[in-house]
């Protein structure tokens, strides 16, 4: 167990380094001068040289990478080209909003997915199973940005029950004034993990029910409700692991939904960074989101190793 943990932790180091390298290279492979977006069209060569030096674009790439990564380790991701503010604080502000949205969506998606998956797996090949499976397939196939639009059309435009865009004014509070903004984007986002968790849990339940221990439980006279409880207990660790990864995907993939709902999160920031060609902001946002994903992966693996005693690979 200890060896597994140590190995898993050590393995994270090269991954984090490579992720940083990819984030860095991605932006520097892109065509065009990173200074284009801030330089006025009639800028003098002097001004250009001064800015280039100020942002460090005049040095060789490996040197730039070294400076960038050592600064990043110290919590400095540089300054945004467009507005001059520190990238890290911009990203951290936005991450809070994205995290709120992704967590709400995960909880909802997980609860629904567990329910549909357990029911579908337990009543396999009945109409209940067919219904739950259809919902799951629709959930993984739907273009979620379109689903978001449809929900806005129904609940904002036609019924006028919920606001269409934004996250409410002022800082977030758990009051209706703010929560009403969260409902539509969270439901839209929840559809994907709902579908994936349903399919995973349905397959799991099938496997579990074919185990000998289920027959043993029934043979010793346990009621179906208690047998079902055992099934849930056995399906939970894998389902939680799947959901943990899904949370990471939602964090990284929230840009489309955030665009539809003008949600002020990292997706909004990415959008700004891409279209204003604000390279430090783009690098920083991608790096933070990717690192979130790496550490979430790590947490899921460790949690699974703790819950499931069979994982003791040395």
């Amino acid at each position, binding site marked *: 167990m200890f060896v597994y943990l140590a190995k898993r932790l050590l393995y994270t180091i090269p991954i984090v380094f490579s992720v940083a390298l990819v984030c860095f290279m991605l932006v520097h492979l892109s065509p065009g001068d990173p200074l284009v977006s801030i330089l006025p069209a009639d800028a003098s060569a002097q001004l250009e040289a001064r800015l280039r030096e100020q942002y460090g674009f005049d040095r060789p790439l490996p040197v730039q990478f070294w400076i960038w990564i050592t600064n990043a380790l110290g919590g400095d991701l540089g300054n945004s080209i467009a507005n001059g503010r520190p990238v890290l604080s911009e990203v951290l502000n936005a991450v809070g909003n994205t995290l709120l949205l992704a967590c709400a969506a995960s909880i909802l998606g997980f609860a629904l997915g567990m329910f549909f998956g357990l029911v579908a797996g337990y009543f396999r090949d009945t109409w209940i199973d067919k219904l739950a499976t259809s919902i799951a397939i629709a959930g993984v196939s739907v273009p979620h940005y379109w689903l978001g639009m449809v929900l806005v059309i129904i609940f904002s435009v036609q019924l006028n029950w919920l606001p269409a865009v934004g996250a409410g004014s002022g800082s977030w509070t758990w009051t209706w004034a703010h929560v009403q903004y969260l409902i539509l984007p969270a439901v839209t986002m929840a559809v994907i993990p709902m579908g994936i968790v349903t399919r995973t849990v349905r397959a799991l339940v099938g496997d579990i029910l074919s185990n000998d221990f289920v027959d043993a439980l029934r043979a010793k006279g346990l009621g179906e409700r208690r047998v079902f409880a055992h099934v849930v207990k056995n399906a939970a660790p894998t389902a939680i692991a799947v959901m943990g990864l899904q949370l990471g995907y939602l*964090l990284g993939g929230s840009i*489309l939904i955030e665009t539809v709902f003008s949600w002020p999160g990292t997706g909004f920031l990415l959008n700004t960074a891409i279209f204003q060609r604000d390279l430090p902001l783009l690098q920083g946002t991608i790096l933070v989101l990717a690192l979130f994903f790496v550490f979430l992966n790590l947490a899921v693996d460790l949690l699974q190793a703790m819950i499931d005693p069979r994982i003791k690979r040395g």
Partner: protein
Amino acid sequence: MAIATEPLREIAIVEKRRGYWGTVGRRLVRDPVSMICAGILLLIFLSAIFAPWLGLADPFRGSMITRLRPFGTEGHPLGTDELGRDMLSRLIYGGRLSLLIGILPVFNAFVIGTILGVIAGYNGGWANSAIMRTIDVFYAFPSVLLAIAISGALGAGVLNSIVSLTIVFIPPIARVAESVTTSVRNLDFVDAARASGASALTIMRVHVMGNVLGPIFVYATSLISVSMILAAGLSFLGLGTRPPQPEWGLMLNTLRTAIYVDPWLAALPGVMIFAVSIGFNLLSDGLRSAMDIRN
């Protein structure tokens, strides 16, 4: 990888009379859901390919006085868009680009990923480590983020969005290819080929490829649905196709301003993306269960 390795074992014990693929095809044709999906997809494909000969209105010609006409307007059965262009025509023409940018990345990734995975799986050792560890790095990015990061860095454009999605789909396909190849590598017939003096390249090309392509192909078809959604999503963000080209994701974006005027018209392009995506998902599920011959 359960999906990847299971069909392999069947290859060895397949009935001789019809051959493996004959049996699979027969089972697929008998599945009504798969056949309905295949029919709908075929219809969308054919109408996109033959769009210029269908007698449709010009998808580029708009008119300021006929903007956002509702369904059933004379001459415009599905109404007109925000610039007065015929919706039916744009939806059908839109399939050309949308299907291309949705499917081509998976095809590219299928070719590249299979080659990488087979080399890694067959050779093992340092080649395996070099290829698979590089691929692990891309696994450290959520796929949507990776696609948007690469597209954002390269800049908007059809070609760039195809490149970025290809990069997104190579790692998962290579992983499946590697795991299938590893399980084939030590089977008796490969040993026999090796003993008879076949070179590594010949063994990979003839003996390994023939047995791994099926499972990898099925896995790749299951990615088309995601690819369609992502490709249209990139256009929706303004990172793919550029106006005035008809493309479903871009149409969804430009029609977004119209949701207060004619909401259901604005949602139409999404229906096309949804239809293609769910069609490929169900067809891929059908193909997978048709290949699972034990049942």
